């Protein structure tokens, strides 16, 4: 066996200098990505909307005029006040400030999106990736047939069914949405992973003798990050819509907590009697959140698909 002739190793590889080069590379990459992203004004508007909503949700206690209106509270003197004056967006049937409740409602919507995606993405991605890598084997069959069963039920029906079996509250509505959502990630990643497994860099790692976890998580997964990330950013809006639907139907956030869907549901009782602000403003709030995340998601998708080329 031939031992590779040892050539002298250079005394100094300046680690600090190399790290500096690396940092600089990364900065340049980020700069280039921001430049591309900022070319599309709609994406920038989406980003600003999302940042504004997140900040409002975090600092809701301090920015809303009546933070105690999200707890058990009644003020029948000021009930059903139209928009204007002290109550910018009017009050509901208990005299609670709608604006304050909407801003707190953002919290539940964002919480829903964050919790659902952090549950769904790792599970869906891992299952899809494993099934795709072992395409054609029994592992593939088991995982993907289970996925197909979940996908064959219309998503909203599935969420409704699960949510109605469980006690109606925010946690259980998150569970319901998560259970209907993971198969979409499994499907997406399955396709990507089964295509990547035939790439020569995967064959190379296999012939060198790398273990399967290394191949899955270090060779294949990094090449799927862009599409997964794009789907996540587009899904935030959808998760919020589904969450709001569930709370509209009384299966999500419960009174007196201010869920946007719950507010629309309660407010709609008063639409025929002319108190339109109770339903319309929370509904508009849902539109704004979803629009913001979708504009941002579109921008990110364009960014990543351009990067792939």
């Amino acid at each position, binding site marked *: 066996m031939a031992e590779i002739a040892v050539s002298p190793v250079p005394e100094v590889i300046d680690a600090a200098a190399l790290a500096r080069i690396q940092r600089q590379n990364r900065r340049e990459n980020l700069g280039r990505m921001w430049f591309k992203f900022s070319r599309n004004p709609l994406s920038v508007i989406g980003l600003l909307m999302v940042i504004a909503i997140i900040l409002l949700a975090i600092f809701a206690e301090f920015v809303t005029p009546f933070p105690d209106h999200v707890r058990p509270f009644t003020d029948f003197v000021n009930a059903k006040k139209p928009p204007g004056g002290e109550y910018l967006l009017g009050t509901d049937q208990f005299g609670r400030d709608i604006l304050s409740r909407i801003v707190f409602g953002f919290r539940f919507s964002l919480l829903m999106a964050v919790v659902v995606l952090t549950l769904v993405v790792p599970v869906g991605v891992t299952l899809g990736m494993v099934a795709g890598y072992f395409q054609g084997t029994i592992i593939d069959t088991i995982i993907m047939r289970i996925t197909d069963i979940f996908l064959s039920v219309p998503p909203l029906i599935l969420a409704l069914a699960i949510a109605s079996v469980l006690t109606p509250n925010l946690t259980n509505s998150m569970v319901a949405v998560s259970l209907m959502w993971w198969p979409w990630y499994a499907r997406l990643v399955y396709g990507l992973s089964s295509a990547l497994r035939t790439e020569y860099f995967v064959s190379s790692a296999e012939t060198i003798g790398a273990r399967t976890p290394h191949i899955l998580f270090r060779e294949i997964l*990094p090449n799927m990050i862009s599409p997964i990330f794009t789907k996540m950013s587009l899904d935030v809006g959808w998760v919020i819509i589904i969450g709001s639907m569930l709370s509209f139907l009384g299966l999500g956030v419960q009174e007196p907590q201010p869920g946007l869907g719950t507010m629309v549901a309660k407010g709609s009782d008063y639409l025929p009697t002319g108190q339109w602000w109770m339903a319309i403003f929370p509904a508009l709030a849902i539109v704004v959140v979803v629009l913001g995340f979708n504009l941002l998601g579109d921008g990110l998708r364009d960014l990543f698909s351009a990067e792939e080329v």
Partner: protein
Amino acid sequence: MSDDIILRVENLRKHFIVGRKGLIKREPITVKAVDGVSFNVRRGETFGIVGESGSGKSTIAYITMGMYLPTSGTITFNDRDLFGHGDRRPLDLRKEVQIVFQDPGSSLNPRRTIRQILELPLSIHQPEKDRLTEIIRLLELVDLPPEFMHKYPRQLSGGERQIVAIARALATNPSLVILDEPTSALDVSVQGKVLNLLIRLQRELNLTYMFITHDLSVMRNLASRVAIMYLGRVAEVAEAVHFFESPQHPYTQMLLSSIPVLTEAEEALRPAQIRSTGEIPSPVDLPSGCSFHTRCPQVMDHCRHIDPLMVPIDVTGSDHIVRCHLFEQANGQVSS
């Protein structure tokens, strides 16, 4: 047998099932990518395999690497059966045989730095060594600056990427390196550089190469012995000098005479002009008998029915094997 043979391929077959026909019997439709190939690679040589696209060259490489299991036949490396453990080849056998793929654009993971790429074989096969030192040594060995380890493949040129792929193959200290068309994805200006590097590495590290290409001029410059493949079978094996100067098999003669030449010196090297006729048949539906009979200018009647054997001939005074009825008769042998 003789211990200067590093890789022994015997009667290797690889049939891929590409579909099924018939409603009830469901007979498989197979592509005979490799169909009864035998050859030996000697220690320290550059064994060239040439052939048209689809002739099964790369399949042989992939089987040797363990990416596919052979349908039948054996490959032994230093008298150890490469498939004695099924597809779980032990690490000490894996480290000995490494491959450089054709397209460095897809053989290097675009999301990993050169350092991470080179670290993988080191961490598996030489966990006791200091990896950073080893990576720098590998990069020096192939004339790349150490700073390259922090780059991503897309930041390198095609030639540099292929050199990184070569460095990765050398990271395990192999004794046999399979080069699967290592220069065909590169610019001509870079090809020479990579080939010179390969020649230098072979000399310095005592490597054996199995060099697969369809570029005959590269083959002429690099190979010590050449096997030519046609539709999954070896047509002729000879020392490179004899292969190019006195080809015996009609297919080799046809192929060599179709090389375009510019100078009279080159013209003189070329065998008499034989016009190439016909198309390469489909490997799904191989011709009966000798698979070359549909295009052979010297086709005889029994070529259409009987598959010729590989026979050693003595025109050049060295090992020279041809699979053709013309030479079986010359040697007085009759195939079954």
